[in-house]
């Protein structure tokens, strides 16, 4: 049975999870980073711990919040660790009360006691523990201070029956609780009082849980009667009663209680959320990130790696193969297939990690939430909200987590639109393609050309969202509220972990997907309709690529090689580069650049990059879209739109460019 970690967003829950489990988890400083529940194992004790999305209450407003409530409804848990931000005690305790009412053993981790003191909040943990009737352990999750004590408290409390607290909600509500509880089955999660209260409050997940089991109308009738007797909503009454109970708890246990804002955060916010310079600062920051990734830092590193793969590594492998007496077939497979395919992609690891590093930095520092606010006006104009901007920035790293992060958007229609727009955000897997083509044809303006592709992706994504929001998915009830957490200096270790967590997928892909893909593609070039070991132009791959080549010729790249690379690119977009490496028989990027320079013109290269940017989302993204939308219709629509848009824009770029007279 699990130990479950509950807490408000931005309370350091994922940091605490990392301390408790020592696992490599992804930490971010904006609500909704934990998009799915993550499981780790308590250090040295072998107890599974689950990290749930941050919630303010058990009544979910968005899909990721629903994950936390559903956990209580469906999974047995041996203990709950409730992480509480000491500086926001009043707000955090609303969740605590609901967890205490549930009746599972609870241990409270009172986090950020150091920050709280700076903000004028000081709480007597022993008194609070006595008042709440559960252990309260002060911790500093960022440094790991207090986690040992917390682990001991959890192990001591775990699996022991714990009585739920019972706050007096007044005659009308108490009467309703009793009447609802009488009708509930005995196997209801937590206890009947908790379930009845959650139902009275209007918790959708609770209603959905009960709905499958019996008729809800008598319960709804009780709620209606109660609300008539009260003269207002039961939820409001319950909230107010809890709030009074919490005020009492704070009055008894707090030594100081001022809740001042942090001065440094105030100062930074005065600049980055300034109405005149807020947006320019964000754009300038993104520009610096791109320059560092592509021009200043990333490219020199990638070039070195490339020199290593094509020089020493190929030599060693070739000598090793010779020494082991490998057949020419195996030699060709390893050197022309695997080294060319996998190596051609691995070369881009430095650039991808630099980009992921900066995305992590933006998340961990707390700046991302400000970006959502600064961008909200623009997003509102196209029918989305500022929160949709965060999945989109994550989409720059990889579309798959971007699609998942859209769960934090409360409105289902806005969420769907965000998911549909996301594949146009240029992910890091498209980077190798740009790096190759822009490096070949636009060496001096590389950053600018790549930046223009990113901008094109954003423009297409937003344009489509606008189209959807004014036609298929009209949405009157757009909603935007966001908590802006205090800034914090990201810790080196956390930063490295979240960069690695995001980037390792790329390396893993190189070892699995791209490895397998490279072997398959090489085999397709090795065999042809008329036998094996055929010349490249008579191979099976040439035949397949040749099928779609005529279609692509108006876009400027009608050779079968381009067609074949695009088809295999559906597996993962970086496979486009692997395929080209294999087709053109080269092991390293510099050799490939020469071949490509002969096959493409600057204009057709740009048109090709535009096509790769926009055409079908990769296989993994398609799977994520299918899972998140739960509909094949939307998934296929997403692919169809992407192909159409890619074709139209590439055609426009190439034909217009030709007329204007670009080479």
């Amino acid at each position, binding site marked *: 049975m699990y130990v479950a970690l509950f807490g408000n967003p931005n309370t350091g829950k994922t940091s605490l999870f990392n301390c408790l489990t020592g696992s490599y988890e992804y930490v971010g400083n904006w609500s909704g980073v934990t998009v799915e529940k993550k499981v780790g194992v308590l250090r040295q004790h072998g107890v599974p711990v689950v990290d749930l999305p941050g919630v303010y209450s058990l009544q979910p407003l968005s899909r990721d919040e629903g994950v936390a409530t559903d956990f209580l409804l469906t999974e047995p848990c041996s203990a709950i660790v409730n992480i509480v931000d000491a500086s*926001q005690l009043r*707000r955090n305790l*609303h969740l605590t009360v609901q967890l205490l009412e549930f009746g599972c053993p609870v241990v409270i981790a009172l986090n950020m006691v150091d920050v709280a003191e700076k903000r004028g909040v000081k709480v007597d943990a022993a008194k609070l523990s006595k008042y709440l009737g559960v252990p309260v352990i002060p911790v500093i999750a960022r440094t790991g201070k207090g986690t040992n004590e917390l682990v001991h408290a959890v192990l001591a409390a775990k699996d022991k029956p714990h009585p739920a607290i019972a706050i007096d909600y007044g005659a009308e509500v108490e009467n309703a609780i009793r009447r609802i509880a009488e009708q509930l089955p005995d196997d209801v999660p937590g206890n009947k009082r908790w379930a009845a209260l959650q139902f009275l409050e209007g918790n959708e997940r609770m209603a959905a849980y009960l709905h499958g089991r019996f008729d809800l109308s008598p319960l709804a009738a009780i709620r209606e009667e109660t609300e008539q007797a009260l003269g207002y909503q039961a939820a409001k009454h319950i909230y107010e009663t809890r709030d009074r109970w919490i005020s009492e708890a704070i009055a008894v246990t707090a030594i100081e209680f001022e809740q001042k*804002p942090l001065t440094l955060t105030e100062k930074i916010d005065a600049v980055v959320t300034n*109405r*005149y310079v807020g947006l320019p600062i964000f754009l300038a920051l993104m520009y610096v990130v791109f320059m560092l990734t592509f021009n200043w830092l990333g490219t020199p590193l990638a070039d070195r790696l490339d020199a290593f793969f094509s020089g020493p590594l190929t030599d060693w492998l070739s000598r090793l193969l010779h020494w082991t007496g490998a057949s020419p077939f195996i030699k060709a497979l390893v050197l022309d297939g695997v080294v060319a395919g996998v190596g051609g992609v691995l070369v881009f690891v430095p650039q991808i990690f630099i980009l992921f590093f900066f995305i992590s930095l933006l998340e961990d520092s707390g700046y991302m939430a400000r970006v959502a*606010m600064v961008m909200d*006006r623009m997003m509102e104009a196209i029918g989305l909200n500022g929160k949709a901007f965060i999945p989109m920035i994550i989409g720059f790293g990889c579309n798959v987590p971007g699609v998942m992060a859209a769960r934090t958007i409360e409105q289902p229609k806005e969420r769907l639109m965000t998911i549909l727009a996301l594949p146009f955000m240029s992910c890091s897997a498209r980077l190798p393609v740009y790096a190759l083509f822009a490096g070949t044809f636009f060496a001096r303006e590389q950053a600018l050309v790549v930046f223009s592709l990113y901008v094109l992706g954003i423009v297409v994504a937003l344009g489509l969202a606008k189209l959807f929001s004014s036609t298929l998915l009209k949405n009157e009830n757009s909603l*935007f509220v966001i908590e802006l957490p205090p800034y914090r200096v990201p810790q080196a270790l956390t930063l490295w972990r979240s960069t690695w967590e995001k980037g390792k997928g790329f390396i893993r892909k190189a070892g699995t997907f791209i490895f397998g893909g490279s072997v398959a593609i090489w085999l397709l070039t090795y065999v042809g309709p008329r036998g094996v070991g055929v010349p490249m132009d008579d191979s099976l791959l040439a035949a397949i690529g040749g099928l779609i080549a005529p279609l692509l010729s108006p876009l400027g790249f009608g050779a079968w090689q381009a067609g074949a690379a695009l088809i295999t690119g559906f597996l993962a977009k970086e496979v486009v580069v692997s395929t080209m490496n294999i087709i053109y028989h080269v092991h390293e990027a510099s050799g490939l650049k020469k071949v490509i320079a002969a096959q493409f013109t600057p204009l057709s290269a740009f048109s090709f990059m535009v096509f790769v940017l926009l055409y079908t989302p990769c296989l993994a993204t398609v799977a994520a879209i299918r899972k998140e939308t739960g509909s094949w219709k939307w998934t296929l629509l997403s692919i169809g739109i992407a192909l159409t848009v890619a074709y139209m824009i590439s055609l426009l770029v190439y034909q217009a460019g030709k007329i204007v007279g670009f080479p």
Partner: protein
Amino acid sequence: MVLTDLYKGETAVVVRLAIEQEALKQRLLHLGVKEGKMVRLKAAMPFGGPVMVEVDGQAIGLRRKEAASIEVR
């Protein structure tokens, strides 16, 4: 008077949340925006964009339309 009538940096007391959307009201309550609370207008984004308010030392961003439905004194 409503929240958006405040000057930048001005503080007022919330009198009523005249917000129709139940979900939004719930979220504001849980963020600590409710009757009797002190709120401070910290910043307003351009072109009618969101406003940034402070409650209990915590900053929150919300749209101007909704902020205009929060009555203050």
